[in-house]
């Protein structure tokens, strides 16, 4: 924990860039919900296995094109693939892995959502599933942002029957994710989603290993890496350790918790870039773009910082919780809020 000095720039002010984006994991368009229900079915064994046939693949392809176009129309600065195939949400990269068995349906954090428990029963060799999705998306946009579960959250969502030791398992997950990232096409940004850092905070020792695991995954790409925890603020020590990782930005869920997030930044500093979760990814109430812009001002006003280089504006969580039309409205609000923030600063 040597790095608790403030890392944001206190030098001559530079212009902050406001980047509208999302953490991905979108809801399926309603027509695709219907078509895929019919084609795949409703039961556990009907969920995506990574070996779907042509008909199902083509529905996903069409839905992917639709959500990419939707993000472009909304005016988002970063475009994600949408992760529409991720039936098991953040557990997806393991759920489709050859050496992972999926067992019972288990609760997804504190939500009324469920995923198949992935049980790692063999070596986590290279898969390429997510790289394949990104390859397809990269043909449709130049502003591509990759999304992955962070290693700590992915390990937390899974059960290990192969490695036998918590530290070794986390290391294996980090190796696996780094290998996947290495196979990605060129992307602008990589979001590593780490809700488990909040929801099941690592204890002494594990917090340091979680940071090292994140560092390892982040080092596998030249893209800007944003680590986005959510559903609250990180515990102080967890946050301090996270800053040791070689990442470009940390995300803060200001929808769920303002005080502790501010405290962390004020007390320990932040990287030169920051990601602000300001629109609620789990509520249909659509924020005003002006209100989001005002929250950006408010956060910046609370910090003894000259300027961030980049401020990502995003929903705090994934958006698959929302009805499709409301998710679309949220994207438009984020894009507009980022434009407003640029104007205000200029």
């Amino acid at each position, binding site marked *: 924990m040597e790095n608790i000095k403030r890392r944001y720039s206190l030098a001559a002010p530079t212009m902050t860039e406001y980047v509208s984006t999302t953490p991905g994991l979108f*809801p*399926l368009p*309603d027509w695709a*919900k219907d078509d*895929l*229900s019919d084609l*795949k*079915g*409703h*039961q*556990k064994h*009907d*969920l995506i296995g990574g070996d779907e046939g042509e008909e199902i693949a083509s529905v996903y392809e069409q839905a992917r094109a639709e959500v990419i176009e939707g993000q472009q129309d909304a005016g988002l600065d970063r475009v994600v693939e949408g992760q529409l195939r991720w*039936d098991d949400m953040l557990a997806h990269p393991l759920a489709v892995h050859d050496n992972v068995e999926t067992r019972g*349906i288990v*609760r*997804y954090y*504190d939500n*009324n*959502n*469920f*995923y198949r428990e992935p049980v790692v029963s063999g070596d986590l060799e290279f898969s390429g599933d997510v790289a394949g999705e990104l390859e397809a998306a990269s043909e449709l946009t130049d502003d591509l942002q990759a999304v992955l579960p962070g290693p700590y959250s992915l390990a937390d969502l899974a059960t290990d029957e192969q490695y036998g030791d918590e530290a070794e398992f986390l290391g294996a997950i980090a190796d696996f994710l780094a290998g996947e990232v290495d196979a990605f096409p060129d992307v602008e940004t990589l979001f590593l989603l780490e809700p488990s850092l909040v929801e099941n905070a690592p204890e002494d020792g594990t917090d340091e290993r979680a940071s090292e695991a994140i560092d390892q995954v982040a080092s596998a790409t030249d893209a800007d890496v944003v680590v986005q925890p959510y559903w609250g603020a990180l515990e102080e020590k967890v946050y301090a350790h996270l800053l040791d990782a070689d990442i470009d930005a940390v995300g803060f869920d200001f929808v769920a918790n303002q005080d502790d997030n501010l405290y962390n930044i004020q007390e320990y500093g932040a990287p030169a870039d920051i990601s602000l979760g300001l629109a609620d990814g*789990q*509520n*249909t*109430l659509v924020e005003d773009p002006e209100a989001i812009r005002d929250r950006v001002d408010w956060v910046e006003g609370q910090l003894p910082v000259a300027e961030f280089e980049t401020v990502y504006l995003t929903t705090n969580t994934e958006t*698959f*919780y*929302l*009805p*499709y*039309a*409301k998710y679309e409205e949220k994207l438009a609000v984020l894009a507009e809020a980022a434009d407003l923030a640029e104007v205000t600063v200029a």
Partner: protein
Amino acid sequence: MSTNENKDQFRPEDHENDHFLLTTVVGSYPKPKWLNRAKELYQDPDHGFDEDDYQEAKDDAARLITNEHERAGLDVVVDGEMRRNEMVEFFAHRIEGYEFNGPVKVWGHNYFDKPSVVSEVEYTDSWLVDEYEFTAEATDRPVKVPITGPYTLANWSFNEAYEDDDELTLALADLVNEEIEKLVDAGARYIQIDEPALATTPDDHAIVGEALEQIVADIPDEVRIGLHVCYGDYSRIYPEILEFPVDEFDLELANGDYDQLDVFKDPEFTADLALGVTDVHVAEVESVEQIEENIKKGLEVVPPEQLVVSPDCGVKLLPREVAYGKMANMVEAARNVEADLDEGTIDIERDTAAPADD
């Protein structure tokens, strides 16, 4: 043998045994296929099947399933919730202040129309009185009315209008209270409040308790109030739930093969226990002998006077003949256990440090 007045009001006059293990269901039951077909016709704008026709179909289905419950021998029956689609949607459509914005994912390709509370919730027309009166008319047996509780109604909705979910829960509790008063006026004597969301967010038992206090305010004591909770870690809500102002807890336990039974042994279970004795997630009918063994699990927690026998949860996802088989075997098993209790051939020691009252 001590008595339990609240429960014994549902004892049939011609009940064959001295002991009485009340048999009932949680609520939902598979819909006849023709009812789903009727709904499709009703929703098809090009078809002449109109609202009256659909109403008649729902009435027929309610009568049919109520009768099916009678044939299975249940002491207290329900109409199988033939008129309801889903446990939150149904009520949200009847409460002012809710709106619908489209389906959201629960898991895989299972979705539900999660509603949004966009303004103050208000009670307008009754939600369930017609349903109750129809079912009560269709049978001579006592009828139970399941109603989704305010905590679940709040938790499984988007909250756009209230400061937080607790505030929304309490606002909805007032509406549920109003509905239960109307049901009681109409003659209902057995109300079951369904709070499956409690099991998913067990830290919230305090707000559920507060909401229940509001719900039962001014409801006469003889009205039996049950609380149904399922699929959760009960150790996180027990014994706190014993403080809730309800007569009965209806708990899913067969699905986990009673691995959580011990939770309820210490401290002593002071309410009535409606024990889940058949697993609604297994599409095979358990044998009478198996269900007898399950019922006896309940006797490890409460004396026979406090025991009610029921499936784990609503049975609507089972094939209809399997659902019927489970009900019929459950009733037969309950009667067998009653007979054995009468004869004194059941020797089950409750582990709780209960005073010698039986």
